[in-house]
């Protein structure tokens, strides 16, 4: 039987898991969030709370700015949970983090364009201004983009997208589509 626990409530000494549980100065395990204390001694949070990006989280964002060294991203989804409107985090994809091979020969204009929706992984929480994002995996990269004429494009290969409406092909670092 799971029971509701509130912050500060002492749990048994066998409480495990770091999420929602902390150990105070006397060694007592206590809850730090409102959640359900399951029989397997871990805490389940019923409400999906949007998180700040942390290392290795998968984020989805929109390309805001592009330069020859890096692409600046406005992160709107962290680990599958959408952030509230207006509260976006700023991420940066550096030239060396775009793909895994031939990192020094990357041309950012052939990988991203402004307005592209990109899926990436956080490699580090970075400095004061932005998180460092990487797309160096087959399933990371541009998920959705529009052609120069403004028509939506579909993925053709890992480096090309094609717009069926106007027939143009454009180069992007494309994410492999997943079934989910």
């Amino acid at each position, binding site marked *: 039987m799971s029971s*509701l626990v*509130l*912050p*500060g*409530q*002492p749990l048994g000494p066998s409480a495990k898991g770091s999420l*929602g549980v*902390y150990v*105070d100065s006397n060694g007592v395990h*206590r809850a*730090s*969030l*409102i959640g359900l204390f399951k029989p397997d001694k871990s805490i389940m*949070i*019923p*409400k999906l*709370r*949007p*998180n*700040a990006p942390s290392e290795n989280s998968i984020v989805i964002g929109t390309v805001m700015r592009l330069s020859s060294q890096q692409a600046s991203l406005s992160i709107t989804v962290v680990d599958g949970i959408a952030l*509230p409107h207006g*509260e*976006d*985090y*700023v991420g940066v994809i550096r030239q060396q983090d775009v793909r895994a091979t031939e990192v020094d020969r990357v041309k950012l204009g052939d990988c991203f364009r402004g307005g592209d929706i990109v899926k990436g992984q956080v490699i580090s*929480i*970075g*400095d*004061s*201004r932005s998180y460092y994002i990487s797309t160096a995996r087959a399933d990371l990269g541009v998920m959705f983009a529009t052609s120069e004429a403004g028509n939506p494009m579909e993925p053709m290969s890992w480096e090309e997208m094609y717009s069926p409406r106007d027939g143009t092909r454009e180069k992007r670092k494309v994410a492999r589509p997943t079934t989910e």
Partner: protein
Amino acid sequence: MAQPSFDRRRVNGPEESFPPIFPDLPAEPLVTNGKRRDGRALNDVRPIFLQTGLISQANGSAYIETGNTKIACAVYAPRQLKNAQYSDVGRLNVEVKFAPFSSKIRRAHLRDVEDRSIGQLVYQSLLPAVQLHLFPKSSIDVFITIIENDGLESCVASASMAASTALADAGIEMLGMVVSCCSAINDDGIWLDPDTAEVKASRGTLLLAGLPALGTITNLWQAGQITSLDALRCIDACHERFKDLHDVVIDALMQSNRAKQAQALS
């Protein structure tokens, strides 16, 4: 007041005017037969109404009413720290605003010194309870609006409790729930949770905030003339009430959880 010039472009008021004269009514005694004006005993706090989820666009929110004091609190967290400074722990920002119609004397629309000092007090009460080390490079923003103010110390106390409830509602990791109680000292004795008239009639006030789950104190604010012995007595009186206040906060959170579950099922 004689008008110095007659302005032809405007509709002018009377040239001379005088303020109305109010008769001096006898002041209602604050204590009769050991009971205060609203029927409370000296060591009773006002009944508390606390509910979460008032402000849907915030990550967490709470509304508290004690007597005539009404306070709404919204929490937006975690958000990216807009400052240029990098920090590996989060920053807690508490902003308090008295609505212009909240007190007997109209307040300014912009935040003034009193708003900032109340905000600082609530910040001190909350800070030890929030696990900021889990929010690197993020800020936790707490916005408190005081809709009606009946007793400044009770505003601080109720605001701290509302903020703590809103933080729990937003899913921010905390060490425990913060509760807060205020007291005023007079020659009659110690009055808990004084309202504006009672504070005015007292010698000094003392506010205590803490985490009852851990048995720790997070803030103590004393104003006026209090001897050290009286201060210790006030602290004991406030501390005795912590358990009841904690029960109120817990009850509010459990009710809100039940309401959310009922909503999720429907």
